[in-house]
């Protein structure tokens, strides 16, 4: 795991500081570590971070939402957009074990749209093709 410390900006959401950090998880996989609440104010940061990743090269993406306490519809829209813009053969996985966030995914019916797994290892396994959709 190689941390390149590419900080895509810390946007204060008023309550919790927000941070998106890009790291290299594997040879062909990038990791976006998200920290803080994902809402109307912080969603653009995530959007640009994802856009940067996708425009750079065709790499798998793992979004780590383990340290996210809340995600609103705007941020969900960003993730939906990223998922739909994926090149063929490129996979996106979400690593999250936070109950609140998982519930929001379920409530909005988007849990069926993403590969949401509890750990980074599972996410890496999925994007690299060793595991299939298991939920």
């Amino acid at each position, binding site marked *: 795991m190689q941390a390149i410390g590419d900080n895509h900006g810390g946007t204060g959401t008023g309550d919790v500081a927000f941070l998106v950090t890009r790291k290299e998880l594997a040879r062909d996989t990038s990791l976006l570590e998200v920290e803080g609440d994902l809402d*109307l104010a912080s969603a653009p940061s995530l959007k640009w971070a994802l856009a940067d990743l996708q425009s750079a090269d065709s790499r798998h993406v793992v979004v780590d939402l383990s340290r996210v306490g809340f995600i609103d519809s705007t941020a969900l829209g960003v993730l*939906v957009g990223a998922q*739909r813009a994926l090149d063929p053969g490129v996979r996106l996985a979400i690593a999250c074990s936070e109950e609140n966030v998982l519930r929001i995914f379920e409530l909005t*019916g988007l849990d069926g749209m993403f590969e949401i797994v509890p750990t980074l290892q599972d996410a890496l396994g999925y994007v690299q093709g060793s595991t299939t959709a298991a939920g």
Partner: protein
Amino acid sequence: MPRRPGVRCQVAPPTSLALVLCILIAFAALLSPAAADQPAQQEPPGESPPSESAAEGASSGKGATHKAERLLRRAEHEAEKAAKTPDEAGGSGSPASATHGVGGSGTKASRQAARAERAAQRAARKAAGSAPKEDAGAAAPAAAKGKGGERSREERRHAHEEQRRKSGRESYKEKQARIAREAREAAEASLGSQGSTGKVTPPTAVAAAGGLAPSATPETKTAAVGSGARAVQGAKTVRVPARAKRRRHAAGAGAASGSAPVAALSTAGEASAATGAGSAAKPRRHAGAKRHASAARRSSPLVTTVTRIIGVVPTAVWLLMGALALAVLAFATSSRLAERRVRRLDRQRRELLEDVGLLQAALLPELPGRLGAVATTAAYRPASGPGAGGDFYDVFALPEGLVAIVVGDVSGHGRDALPHTTLLRYTLRAYLEAGLDPREALRAAAPALERQLGGSFATVVLATYDPRERILTYSCAGHPHPLLTGLDPGEAIIAASAPPIGAGRPTGTRQTVLAVPGGALAAFYTDGVIEARVEGELYGQGRLAAELERLSSGEASAASLLDRVAEQTDRRPDDMAACVIGISGGDEAPRIVSEQIELDGREAGHARASRFLAAAGVPQAEIGRVLSAARAIAADHGSALLTIEAGEAEGSPRLTLTHDNVAPLRARALARTQEVAL
């Protein structure tokens, strides 16, 4: 917000006052060097008159006087020559040469002497009165005559002079010369000290002092040393009458005696007397100018004081003041510009928000208040920020007395969200009015809407209430389930919820049917309501349900519900919209009658479906079997519709699996229409 410009206006006057002050300071700073220079510039004309007055004195004589002067000068020159002759013979100690030595010691002194001579001539002419020509004419021959004749006398005087020198006493002329020198030195010294202030032009002052010196008494000298140029001038003015007398006397002697020695003497004497006279004539005028200047200065003490103060302030302080004034000016200007810009932006923002609000309000219909037996209220509170816009609702009557409810939220905000809001509201309304169930309407409308949303997505809840059956049917697409009083919000099965419209997945896959036997309030709302914050925490569905319960005993309106939410929350980052349906009746609590889920081949194999079945009360042993049956139907018909009906009594629910999908729905809708027609 409207008060803001007012506050700025109140701030503005001090700013402009400071601006005016700064401009004044800047002006003072600009003017001060000029003010400081003024005395120095004014002084020279006052001090310079010596040369000016000398020139005037020279030119004041008209044609005849000039002739007389010339003659007189020639006579003097000849007399001088005559006096010099014995000097050359008798060595260097002659009084004439001594006088000359003093006079020629400095070019200034010699110039002074020449000027003094001229002035003396003028004075002589005036003293001579009516016939200057004759006087001059008489003087000239006398001087010429006395060239050789008076030599013995001159020699005698010379001898006498030498004797006196030998005895250690200085002659009168030597004494005069010494005094002159001393006075000049003193004047120079005092002027030197004054010159440091830069207000007096030293050469002129020195010349004036030098002119005065020969006839200056020790007292004058002291005065000159003590108080400088002005005191010297005063002394000069006082002395003028006495000297004028002496001048007249000298000229008269030169004119009357007609002898060479007298002429010589007068020449020698004139070196001092005439010098004194010349200088006296000069300073008089000079002093006059000075008096004018001092009078002008004395007339306004304020100006004097200010000038002095300005003169005292160092240049560095002036520069600093200037820089500060400029900085203040710059700051004032920039703040004023920024203020104007902020005001303009504020106005534009307000106008824009008003526009958005107007458009939003135009999109949000006014509800009739009551549709049959159902009380209908709706409310909308836009977020006080960039989140404004995107929420929508609609409540309308359907055939057979049914009431349709639509509440939704389009992703994106502001003007981008508005067209989508309209599109969704009217499209969904049309599908509902066509006679479709909420789920069927969503299922049919979603693909068409997704194409038009252009990447955006929308969460929505569609519901119909049948007052005759007391049945509430709703279907969500990525949207929060409605809340009903008397029904535990936890009873709603959120597993395997349908995704929003525009997410790229089939939606309209879930539907819930509720029986509302008694009176109840049903609240449909957007996520902005439950995502409002209470001290950083989400407001949540639990709090909202509790608030709805409280509301049922009082004024049951959507507006009052949102007001209560607004009171309890400190931050509302998104729009809030709510629809409250008031169903009158007894105390019987509503209950879930059935849950529906449409499963395609992928969904049927997903863990979501298993979780849904488990939540619906299907025994674990049954789940696998049900799902494999659903997969089989989906393989043949694209999807399988699973309906789980809760039994009247406690026990396992009744499950129905059909290959129901959009195509048969059309037929059913048609059938229903026929039914109505009959």
